[in-house]
């Protein structure tokens, strides 16, 4: 099946390009912060007569109104900016962790309201808190650090409380509590070490945020005051002279952008190193899903003709290795095999719905006079093939109501009006014994049970009277009683309408009940072809089929050992992935 193909080696790398770039940038910024004040302070701070010079080799970005070198000032300001951001980050992280874990340790009647309060505080822009603190204290670098530090506390407190709640019910915490370990020791010994990774990642992002917010406070005049200067203060001074000396805002802007970018890259990089889903975005080669080797003219009476169908994986390996079979009109054909045997891929090739990166080739692949390899006739495809999928819980669109989903083919491809399509659909739902079909049509999928969803899917796949229904493990996700009911619906529909059904299952018991013909697949090949009756009577020839049969427990059969794993096809004794 398609999903088994993508699971191969997802390596978890600690270092990704974003992290490396971020660390390198931040490293050079720290270097500037250490070195610049040592060597450039005279150029940055001593007043000279060279007021408002343009850019030159001596002053790359020119000088400000007091004749100080703009570039030197921007470089020297790095130290104060980084220290302030660091200070604010420490306040946010420590404050947040202390509050978050105290909330978690507190008795329930305090915990619930406290959590609500934190939630309420997080909803406000953090700038509000910063402005409140700035209003209480007089403007200055300490004020800015405290203001931005406090502004960051609520979100950290919330994350700590959430993480603590998710760890708290683990066994070792319960054990520690039972042993009477005091609360603060549970926090320091068990809780904090186990949430250090996400908190560390969050701290990097918090640093990036502190940097930008402290600079914004200084920029509007509420942070660092003259004669001190950080990036924000320099921007503030530069803005006044922006028409005279645009370069004066450019230099601190560049420094601020580089530092901010470094912090963001580190945060993102650490996050994706910790969360492999984002990091491991594997890329598959792209190809057209269908290609045509020599197609033979349709000759036989068969409704569906599959001749030498192969499905190739992303690297060109054969997953389905040349499968051939025919289906007569009205026939119910079962395709059985274990997971990964290629049965679903075979079915999805016929439906033209292979996953990204997979390619199907065949000598012949046709349904009636429709060449499934080359057709671009979406209307014919939609109307001729009805599809029922494995998991009704995920095959319906959760955001749409049932009605529009179920009637979509009729409305789009048969140009039926909404009323017309609804009426037909309601009748079909009724026929498949869904109670109150009008109500169901207005509900969302999550309001229906799995069995109801799957029956609706069957109704939808039959309502356009297709020539072939492909059912890909339609009963696997359902419980046993519902399974039996769904199988009866298929059987009845087949008898009443004479529609051919290609029925895929790994359950040989299900298949022998329902199907006229059964194909047994293993590792991309068809091993044996049987009639349903032969299968029922136990007249299977191939050892693999016999093993499958004996692996499905029967109430009447003799007891024995499960043998499915013991049979190996001779030609594939070498280890396969």
């Amino acid at each position, binding site marked *: 099946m398609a999903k088994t193909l993508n699971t191969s080696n997802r390596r978890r790398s600690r270092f990704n390009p974003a992290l490396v770039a971020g660390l390198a940038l931040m490293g050079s910024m720290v270097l500037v912060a250490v070195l610049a004040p040592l060597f450039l302070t005279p150029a940055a701070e001593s007043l000279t007569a060279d007021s408002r010079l343009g850019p030159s080799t001596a002053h790359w970005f020119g000088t400000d109104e007091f004749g100080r070198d703009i570039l030197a000032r921007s470089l020297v300001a790095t130290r104060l900016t980084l220290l302030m951001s660091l200070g604010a980050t420490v306040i946010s992280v420590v404050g947040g962790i202390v509050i978050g874990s105290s909330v978690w340790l507190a008795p329930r009647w305090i915990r619930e309201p406290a959590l609500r309060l934190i939630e309420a505080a997080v909803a406000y822009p953090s700038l509000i808190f910063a402005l*409140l603190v700035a209003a209480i204290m007089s403007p200055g670098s300490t004020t800015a650090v405290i203001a931005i530090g406090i502004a960051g506390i609520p979100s950290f407190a919330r994350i700590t409380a959430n993480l603590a709640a998710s760890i708290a019910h683990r066994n070792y915490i319960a054990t520690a509590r039972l042993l009477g370990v005091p609360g603060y020791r549970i926090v320091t010994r068990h809780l904090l070490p186990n949430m250090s990774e996400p908190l560390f990642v969050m701290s990097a992002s918090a640093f990036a945020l502190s940097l930008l917010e402290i600079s914004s406070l200084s920029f*509007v005049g509420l942070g660092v005051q003259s004669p001190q200067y950080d990036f924000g203060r320099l921007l503030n001074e530069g803005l006044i002279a922006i*028409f005279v000396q645009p370069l004066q805002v450019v230099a601190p802007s560049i420094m601020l952008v580089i530092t901010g970018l470094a912090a963001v890259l580190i945060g993102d990089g650490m996050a994706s190193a910790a969360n492999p889903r984002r990091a491991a*975005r594997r890329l598959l080669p792209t190809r057209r899903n269908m290609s045509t080797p020599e197609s033979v003219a349709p000759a036989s009476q068969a409704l569906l003709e599959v001749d030498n169908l192969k499905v190739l994986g992303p690297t060109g390996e054969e997953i389905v290795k040349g499968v051939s079979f025919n289906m007569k009109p009205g026939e119910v054909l079962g395709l059985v095999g274990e997971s990964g045997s290629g049965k679903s891929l075979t079915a999805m090739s016929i439906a033209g719905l292979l996953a990204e990166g997979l390619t199907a080739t065949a000598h012949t692949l046709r349904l009636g006079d429709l060449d499934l390899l080359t057709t671009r006739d979406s209307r014919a495809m939609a109307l001729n093939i009805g599809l029922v*999928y494995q998991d009704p819980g995920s095959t319906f669109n959760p955001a749409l109501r049932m009605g529009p989903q179920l009637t979509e083919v009729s409305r789009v491809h048969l140009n039926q009006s909404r009323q017309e399509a609804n009426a037909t659909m309601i009748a079909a739902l009724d026929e498949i014994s869904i109670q109150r079909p009008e*109500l169901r049509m207005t509900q969302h999928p999550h309001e229906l049970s799995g069995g109801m969803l799957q029956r609706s899917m069957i109704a939808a796949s039959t309502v356009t009277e297709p020539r072939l229904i492909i059912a890909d493990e339609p009963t696997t996700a359902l419980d046993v009683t519902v399974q039996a009911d769904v199988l009866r619906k298929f059987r009845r529909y087949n008898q009443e309408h004479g529609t051919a059904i290609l029925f895929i299952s790994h359950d040989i018991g299900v298949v022998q009940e329902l199907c006229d013909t059964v194909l047994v697949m293993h590792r991309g090949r068809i091993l044996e072809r049987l009639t349903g009756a032969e299968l029922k009577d136990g007249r299977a020839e191939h050892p693999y089929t016999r093993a499958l049969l004996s692996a499905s427990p029967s109430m009447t059969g003799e007891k024995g050992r499960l043998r499915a794993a013991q049979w190996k096809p001779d030609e594939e004794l070498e280890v396969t992935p």
Partner: protein
Amino acid sequence: MALTIKPPSTAPVRATGSPLRRRLASSPWLDFAMRRTGGLLLSLFVLVVLTFMVVPLIPGDPALAIAGPDASAATIERLRQELGLNDPLLVRFADYAGGLLQLDFGNSFRFGDPVSGIILSKLPYTAQLAVSAIVIVLLVAVPVGMTVGVLTRGGRRRWLDLGFSNVAGFLASLPPYVTATLLIILFAIVWRVLPAGGANSMEALILPIAALAVGPTCAVARVVRQETAVVLEQDFMRTARGRRLPALRLYLVHALPNLLTSTLTLTGLILASLLGGAIIIETVFNYPGLGNEIIQAIIYRDYPLVQGIIIVVGIIATLLNLLVDIILGIIDPRTLGAKTHG
């Protein structure tokens, strides 16, 4: 078979009570409304307490701090009376909260006018800026993010994927005030096509709105791209492809609503920061809104005005959050039940 027993198909089974009442009782909206009203009141309470605490928390004597070091003893005493600093804290809080309930924010120290009037005259400017920016963010970010997501699905067009995520990531990390200064240099100084400040004409709004919208647009577009990739892999999208729908219908009807849930959740957070950005950015453009006003008020220690503006901005943030959740609930009713667990 016994299975073919059907209830009379045309008459739906009726429970007791009027249909309307049944509908309301089972409606997740009623539950949602009650829960959110509680949350809203709590948020407001937090806001009122926080703003109230500004004056008592001023280090030293607030009256001295407000009046300045050169004020006479009489002035300071008058200020103490005016602020009610001689009353116990709880009495002062009751006065403060009581005043707020009657929409009385007090009088500005600096102008002597009622704070509510000042806020009402400045609010439209800020709202104009923030609302336009939000609309632009959503109008640009969702189509762009989705288009890139569709074009790069399953590893197609690696160059676009790399280029987009790097450029958007960079722009998203720019703070709005830096974007603003750079935009002024380019458009007002180098090319001289747009004014660098004020609020007198439509052109004057272009740069502030752009500066506010660029970062969030890129941030949201990145999320939309990411979510598009996730949604396109879902089983229900294969179901939709199996129906051979036209591309536009496939992406707009089937993928978009599922993207919007996660996008809007994030948008709610971004909106809060956008509001903060609007406050800062007004300084850059010398724009006569609430942001410029509150920063002046803080510098001049005009506490009633600071308190009033923070309460108003806080309420707007809370209402925006609620609006996002209501839209989410309309798109996907399952979200109505969530979000209570802390």
